[in-house]
């Protein structure tokens, strides 16, 4: 077990003139499960491969435990990796596949290797598959074997490179819990790369969001969800994505209002107790963000105590447990997650409302000015712009 640290790591492909990883600094504590999440091509896999030693960092240091590992071959780093396409050796059976690393890298006797393989197979419930070739296994079984190959080595760290992307949705959820269970049981430091924000939210002790090779934010899943550091993180984490609309700050007799730049789509009167905490000057352009679950919808404006905004229901998507409403707000479409019993008629006027606590505001550069304040005191600590700044600086550390 070991701590992994990346210190200002940059990976540049000079031939193609691409900066895949741009000055990333990150610390993964001993035994921690960190999920690196981001859209395709954001550099998350390259970051992982730099830790694995399959790529060399152009600049910066990578260390595992007390050792700086730059320039070391993967075999000298004492890590195990699980690949997206499993990468099982097709000519070896499951037993040989799992034991291969031990056979090559250690001087263990055949009996000892056998024992370790059996143990790992037991943990993964694949004991009855040991004599089979990978070709005869299903995707889920193959991925279990790949996990077994990693576990059996008892390495300092596990590196997962989108291990569940090739599985179907149901199996993916099952394996997700499985991996989390095994990681917790073995408490081996793990880095898990995925493009699936749901996977990130559910699995990670902490998640690190990347975009364009840069680290955007690091934090606990709920922290990142409720207090995204910037507009990118806000849009990327959460499904359906956060609703956003660009607005201008206006002031009228001391009352601050946010008027959408697109004419008449939305005008939001900012309550004084919220507006006073924020550093907003009339004329500023901001982006309003609201999570779909925070949007309330009714067919009549009288249903709300506070302000409401006119909209049109475009589509109703029943999910069983909820209904998703697609609402036209000028040219923008917003999504609302409402109870399944509420199914307003489509193409007719409805009214939406959201409380000031649910409001996210982002400045012109996309940085967070205000994030959501949860009303449930048990799950939240009131966190405002100041604290969000701190989590950003943690991300950059």
């Amino acid at each position, binding site marked *: 077990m070991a701590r992994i640290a990346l210190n200002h790591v940059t990976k540049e492909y000079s031939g193609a003139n691409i900066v895949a990883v741009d000055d990333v600094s990150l610390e993964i504590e001993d035994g921690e499960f960190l999920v690196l999440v981001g859209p395709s091509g954001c550099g998350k896999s390259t970051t992982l491969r730099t830790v694995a030693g399959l790529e060399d960092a152009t600049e910066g240091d990578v260390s595992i435990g007390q050792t700086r590992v730059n320039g070391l071959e993967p075999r000298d780093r004492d890590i195990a990796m699980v690949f997206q396409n499993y*990468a099982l050796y097709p*000519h070896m059976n499951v037993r040989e596949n799992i034991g291969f*690393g031990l056979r090559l890298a250690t001087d263990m006797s055949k009996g000892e290797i056998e024992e370790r393989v059996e143990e790992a197979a037991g943990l993964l419930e694949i004991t009855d598959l040991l004599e089979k070739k990978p*070709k005869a296994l299903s995707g889920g079984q193959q991925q279990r074997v790949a996990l077994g190959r990693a576990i059996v*080595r008892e390495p300092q760290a596990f590196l997962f490179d989108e291990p569940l992307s090739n599985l179907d949705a149901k199996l993916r959820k099952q394996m997700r819990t499985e991996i989390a269970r095994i990681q917790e049981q073995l408490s081996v430091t793990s880095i898990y790369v995925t493009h699936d924000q749901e996977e990130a939210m559910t699995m990670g002790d902490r998640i690190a969001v990347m975009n364009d090779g840069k680290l955007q934010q690091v934090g606990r899943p709920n922290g990142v969800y409720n207090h995204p550091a910037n507009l990118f993180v806000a849009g990327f984490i959460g499904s359906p994505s956060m609703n956003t609309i660009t607005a201008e700050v206006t002031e009228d007799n001391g009352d601050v209002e946010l008027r959408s730049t697109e004419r008449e789509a939305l005008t939001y009167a900012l309550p004084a107790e919220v507006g006073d905490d924020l550093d907003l000057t009339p004329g500023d352009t901001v982006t309003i963000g609201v999570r779909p679950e925070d949007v309330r919808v009714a067919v009549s404006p009288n249903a709300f105590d506070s302000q409401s905004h006119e909209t049109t229901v475009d589509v109703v998507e029943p999910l069983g447990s909820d209904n998703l409403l697609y609402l036209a707000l000028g040219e923008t479409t917003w999504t609302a997650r409402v109870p399944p019993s509420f199914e307003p008629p489509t193409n007719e006027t409805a009214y939406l409302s959201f409380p000031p606590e649910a409001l996210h505001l982002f400045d012109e550069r996309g940085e967070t000015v205000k994030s959501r304040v949860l009303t449930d005191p048990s799950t939240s600590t009131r966190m405002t712009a100041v604290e969000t700044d701190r989590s950003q600086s943690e991300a950059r550390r």
Partner: protein
Amino acid sequence: MAEQQSVPTTAAGIPSDAYVGKEPDDQGKARLESLPISFEMLLLAPSILTLAVLSIVPLAVMLWLSVMEVNFTPVNEQIFVGAENYVEMVNDGGVWNAWQTTVVYVGGSLVLQLGLGVLVAVMLHRVIKGENVFTSIVIMPMMIAPVVVGLLWQFLLDPSFGLYTYLVNQLGLFTNRPILGDPDSAMTALILMDTWQWTPLIVLIVLARLKGIPEHLYEAARVDGATGFTQFRYVTLPLLKPAIAIALLLRSMDLMRYFAKVFITTGGGPSNTTKIIGLYVYEQSLRFFNLGYGAAVGLFMLVVTVLMGLVFVETIMGGAGDDE
């Protein structure tokens, strides 16, 4: 089946309009199923017919000839002799001599071609820039007709003006004896000649397979602790087995019936040291016109070739194809 389709489907008592029948193209298939032979056989029929005319008929004629004694003079006659030709073959020292020569020739060529072929393929695979150019250059000898290769090498090894003879002479070797005329060196020269021409085939087959080995297997092996050599030993080589089996099969069958280059260069000499079995069959059948005896030896040669092919496929490919 058709009946099942027309009945509305219910699952657990709930009517459903889900289509539960077979795929829509079933009916066309049913029509095909009424044919006396399978659709696959129907597609294969033209090539089977062609093969029958070109291969199976000559084979039958050969079988027939192998139990006959055929004389052209003084009158054209065919006498049934039963197994006599085969008995004669067993007692003929010339045949066994030819087989020994063949084993040396085939074995030497296979080992050399396979070793070099895999080596060159692995090297070519690692070339990043201009791989296509290098590959094209490497495979050039393969494009030349065997007879032309024989003539070319005869020219190069000519005792008085051959380039290779000149080069070897510079090393102080073969200064007073011709390379192809020396019992000690003629076979080596023939093996090198064939290796020169046919290693590229093995390179091509192995290279194609190498390109099909996914990069992530090597990455997994590197993480698992493999060095460059152990990667080759435990990942590359086992995965190359099917390609190697195919290459061996093609080359061994080809080498077994080899004739052209030997005929052109040494003609089986000096003193029969390069008289391989193919040449022996040619001599018996078409030079001495012992058609019956030649057919018997040729048939035995066919049996050996088939058996050898089977051994390669079974042992190296391990029943073929379950490595994927």
